[in-house]
Structures are given as structure tokens and as C-alpha cells.
């Protein structure tokens, strides 16, 4: 891994600390996703804060987009509501800034067109200034990411790409080579959404990815409870929970706190199962 041109105290290094700290406790990191602006900008800040306070090591702040092709109904519904309430890109940056100001660690999850429109360099600059650590890009692959890789490097942000069960070994190699911070492994072939069981494809994919990289590997898509979190934690460095948290968010902060606590116990191997 190369060091960023932005120095040593960068988003990338702080993101690395999330995983080293978890590893020191012999557990996986818990990563929670919630979209900015759902149910309101202020409400989303409260929910994300709650997730961090209840045991999430890192949050993904979703940047709402009109055409989320990799998202299932739960997240579609939430971002649709956020957009109907008029959420803007600057609101997402504001949420990240507020989280970072109180010591929270946050990356942004965004489809690529909003960043293109905002300006790739400007987005990297403003996200770094807000204290964000990196960006997960579900519909941007490294092949098309030249400008973003340069901007991320300049600002010390982690470009976080996805690998999928369908990825060839060659693509896993090239994708991991472009990724910083952690690698996002999609557990299954499908859109986001809670599932009843962790797919076998997840363990295979993580094993394949480990052959190409020393990066921490986070597994997402389908995790919904503490037992599943514990299962994923047994073979991954990070457990990513999205739709289940968004569903909980429909019931308010207490529900988010409850689920996060359960998931945090899960990644520590303390969940008794259900």
C-alpha cells in the first residue's frame, strides 16, 4: 500500500485505525449505513450519532440519489423520501462534518453521478475538509476512476471499491490494488436488503480477496441481526449493516440503538443467537 500524498494524519490512516483497534480486541469492526436526510437532515444526524454511540465503529453516510440501481426497496424508499424533502449534497457533507466534530468516523456511500456533477476534485476537497475518511462507490469501478483516484490521493481520502462473487480473480486483483482503507465485499449477487441467511458466497469471496490484499475486508449485503453479524465477523474484518438499520430507523432512535447494540455484541462473538 502506498502512502497518500496528503501526509500521515489522513482519512486513510484514520480509517485504518478503525480496523486495527477492532483487531486488537480480536473482533471485527461494525459498520453501519444510514442515508443523510432520512427522515430529515437533523434526524439523520441523530440516528447516525446514535449508531456510533451504541457501538458502530464506523458509519457510512448515504448520499441520496434518484436512481439507486444497487439498492433494494428499503433503502430506495428512504432515499426517495430524503430527496422529496429536498436533501442536497451539501447536507450530506454537513452531516459528515457534524459527526466528525464529535469524534465520529464516517465515510460517504454515493452513486457516482452526484459527485461528477459536484465536481470530483471539489467533492474530495470538501469531504476531506468535513472530516470524512473515504468514499464507497457502488457504481464506479476503478477502470473509470482515474480522476477520483488522483483527487482521493491528494486529499488523503480512501477510495473504497466493491468486489462481488462474480468478480474474476483478475478483477479482484485490480480492484484491491486501487482500494484504500478497506475492501467492500458484496456477500451475494443482488441488491441491498436484509436476508435470512448469510450467503456461502461471502466466505468464498473473502477468501479469494485475501489472496490479493492485506486490506481489511468488510462484508455487506443482507446482514440483519446479531447472530448473522457474529457469523460474518468470524471470517471478515468488518460487518456492514445497511437495510436493517434503515428499517430500524423507521421506528426511531431507540430502535437504531437497540439493533446497533445487538450487532455490536454480535461482532464481539457475544450474541447468543436467535
Amino acid at each position, binding site marked *: 500500500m502506498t502512502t497518500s500524498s496528503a501526509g500521515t494524519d489522513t482519512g486513510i490512516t484514520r480509517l485504518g485505525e478503525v480496523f486495527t483497534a477492532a483487531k486488537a480486541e480480536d473482533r471485527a469492526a461494525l459498520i453501519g449505513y444510514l442515508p443523510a436526510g432520512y427522515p430529515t437532515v437533523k434526524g439523520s444526524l441523530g440516528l447516525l450519532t446514535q449508531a456510533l454511540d451504541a457501538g458502530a465503529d464506523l458509519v457510512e453516510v448515504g448520499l441520496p440519489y434518484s436512481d439507486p*440501481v444497487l439498492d433494494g426497496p428499503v433503502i430506495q424508499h428512504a432515499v426517495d423520501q430524503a430527496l422529496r424533502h429536498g436533501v442536497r449534497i451539501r447536507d450530506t457533507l454537513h452531516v459528515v462534518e457534524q459527526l466528525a466534530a464529535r469524534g465520529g468516523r464516517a465515510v460517504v456511500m454515493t452513486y457516482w453521478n452526484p459527485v*461528477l456533477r459536484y465536481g470530483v476534485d471539489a467533492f474530495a476537497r470538501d469531504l476531506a475538509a468535513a472530516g470524512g475518511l473515504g468514499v464507497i462507490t457502488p457504481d464506479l469501478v476503478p477502470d473509470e476512476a482515474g480522476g477520483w483516484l488522483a483527487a482521493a490521493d491528494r486529499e488523503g481520502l480512501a477510495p473504497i471499491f466493491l468486489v462481488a462473487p462474480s468478480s474474476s480473480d483478475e478483477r479482484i486483483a485490480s480492484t484491491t490494488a486501487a482500494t484504500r482503507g478497506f475492501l467492500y465485499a458484496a456477500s451475494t449477487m443482488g441488491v441491498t436488503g436484509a436476508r435470512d441467511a448469510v450467503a456461502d458466497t461471502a466466505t468464498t469471496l473473502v477468501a479469494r480477496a485475501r489472496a490479493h490484499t492485506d486490506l481489511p475486508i468488510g462484508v455487506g449485503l443482507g446482514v440483519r441481526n446479531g447472530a448473522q453479524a457474529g457469523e460474518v465477523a468470524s471470517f471478515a474484518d468488518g460487518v456492514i449493516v445497511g437495510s436493517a438499520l434503515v428499517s430500524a430507523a423507521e421506528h426511531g432512535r431507540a430502535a437504531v440503538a437497540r439493533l446497533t447494540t445487538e450487532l455490536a455484541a454480535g461482532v464481539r462473538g457475544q450474541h447468543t443467537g436467535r
Partner: protein
Amino acid sequence: MTSAPTASQGLAGTAHEPDDSGHFGRWGGRFMPEALIAAVDEVAAEYEKARRDPAFLAELDRLQRDYAGRPSPVTDARRLAEHAGGARILLKREDLNHTGSHKINNVLGQALLTKRMGKTRVIAETGAGQHGVATATAAALLGLDCVVYMGEVDTERQALNVARMRLLGAEVVPVTTGSRTLKDALNEAYRDWVASVGHTHYILGTAAGPHPFPRMVRDFHRVIGLEAREQVLAAYGRLPDAVVACVGGGSNAIGIFHPFLDDEGVRLVGFEAAGEGVESGRHAASITGGSPGALHGAMSYLLQDDDGQTLETHSISAGLDYPGVGPEHAYLADSGRATYEPVTDAEAMDAFRLLCRTEGIIPAIESAHAIAGAVRMGPRLVAEVGPDAEPPLILVNLSGRGDKDVDTAARWFGVVDPESLPTEEPPPGTDAQTGEREL
């Protein structure tokens, strides 16, 4: 007359290809989830093999000839031309193909490719329903399972095509998210494909999306321009002065434009759906009124707001009601080789009626945009060549027939009592929940 060019000649490769990763200059490429990269790689590799495989090419030509009815004729529209300032208007009759539009050209090609890849199921998005009908048709012919995603708004305004698809054995899924039109149908098709890619091919319906679709779909439609070029040369001893087509995603336009790219004297004009006027904000003219962005897999012109959110579009024509456009059109617009002009709903419907009454042809409302454009540019071309010259030839791609649009047109012109038109109310004996009967 020499024998007509065949569909397979469209696949032969040209001097106008994207780079290996599908870029036309700064446009195109692959802006899409990693999970689908393996699938589009497979499609690209299989297409490269297929287009060099004599057996595949022969089968494609056989189907296009014996099943779809190619070549389609060119009709000299003399009575229509009386409204075009002295220009001569030639109609390339893609409306006469089996299923009633140009869409069959692409669908037969991709359905054959699906079989080659050993996949058993196809999915498609559709706006007006023409691509959905063509896909359902090819699926029936080749024994493939077929699911078509269609925005709920479009299932209502194109109810006839929904019925056609179901009769052909396809499942039609109304899409209720977002603006409930074509772009949302594409989103749902992508979501299906991510989860089904092992056994499913996505028959993308226009020359857009991630590489290799813009190039491959274009190639399957190049037969339109290859035929028309020969037909016009044979009948008039010269090339047309202008080749025009409607542009939504742009597949019929790129199909007829492409074989003329090297004919410098032939101007290429695409007509975009201006809805209630580009200045009204209620339109679907991506090149005229849009800006660069990435949607549904490719970099192209896009109707979007300051935050990169896709804007809701409007066109009376469901098939043009889409906020993006194929990347090769963006490239041709930038280079100036093709130009793009807006045509409003009202202009298109005037042209729709004009073609009905002068030529006895009911066009698809999509294609009526091209007719409107041709009639509008006629006097301009005549003025350019001068009064003593031969009348200029305008070749129009009449991409589809208008049976599906009869409801919309009847309402627009008030030619029938609105009470007599179909309503939301299901007829007796219909399943109250789904509005469906067993077929």
C-alpha cells in the same frame, strides 16, 4: 437491382468504433456495479465471437429475412412532401417489420446471443412497449423465459402493448418507483440482472448503457442505414441530402445514421422530444437541454439538476420519455457530424395527423417527431440548394407504426367520445386484484 445488404453486414466493423473499453471520445464506458462487470464482459466476448461466426451471421440473416421481413422498403412520400417546401421525403419503413418497429433488429440479435451464452431467461425494459413486444416475440420464438419491466405510467398509456406482451407469454412487471417511466424500468431491470445474471441476459433496448451495448445494439440496427443507402442510390442515383430520425435513447437514429458517417455531403439530424418546449422544463431533450453525466452505465448527455439527480422528463411519446441518450450520439453531437433539434408534443402530433392523412400511414408518436423534423427542415434545404436544383432528398427513419398510440392520438385530437375509450375500470370477469385474466 442488386441484392439488399443483410443484417449481418451491420456487424462487420467500421472505421467508427469505440475504444476497447467502450469509450466514444469522452463518452460511454462503464459506470456500473462491479457485480455486473463479469456479465457485460461475457456479452462483449460472446458478441466478438458471434460477429465473426458464419453460422451465427447466417442465422441472424435468415431470421431477419424470413421472420422479421427484411429488407424494409423505402416509400417516396409524395403527398407528405407537398408540406415540406419542395423537398422530397423518403420514408424508411421500419414500421413494416414484424412487431411493428425497428426494435426487432436488435432483439433477434441479442436473443440469438442469449442462446449462444447458454442462458435461458431474458429481461428487458420498455417505454412505449415496442422493445418489450419485440423481446417477448423473440423469447417466444427461441423458447426463452421473458420478463419485461415497464413503468406504471407507461403500462397505462400503452395498454395495447402490455396485452401483446402477455399474449406472447412474457411477464410484464409494472414499475412503481420514481417517475414510473422508462428510466425506472431500467433501474428495475438492472436490479433483476444483478441477482439473476447466472442464467439471465438483459436485452437492453437502445444503443445506450454500459459497453458493449451501445456498439452492439448499433451494429444490429446498422442494417437500417445499409439498406436505405443502397435503396436511395438505386432509385435516385444519388445519396440523400439529409438523414433524419427521432432520438430517445437513439437506437433507430444511430442505426440509420451510421452507414452515412463517411458521406460528408449527407447531413444527419436527430429530433429529440421537446415535450411542452425545452424552455418549459417539461421535455426529454437530453442533448439540446442536458449536460454531461453518468446514468445507467454510460457517460453521456443527461437531464439532471445541480446535484446530479436525474430530472423527471416529459414527452407525449413514451418511447422518447427518457432523461439520457446513447453515448455515440453525444460524441456525434460534440463532433458536429450530427446535429440534434427539439420537436414538441404539438409539432409531433401535427406531423402524426399529416402523415395519416397524406400517406395513409399511422406512425408511432416517436417516429412522428422525425416526420415533424423533416417537414420543418424541408424549406431550409430547398433554400440552400436553390430553386433551380433538383429537390433535396430527405430520408426519414419511420421507426415504428402507431397502433399502440391510437388511444393517445384519439384523445389528443378528440376524434372519439372520451367515454368510449378504455378506462381504469376492469371489464367483468377480470381478476379484481391484478386486472388480469388467465390467458
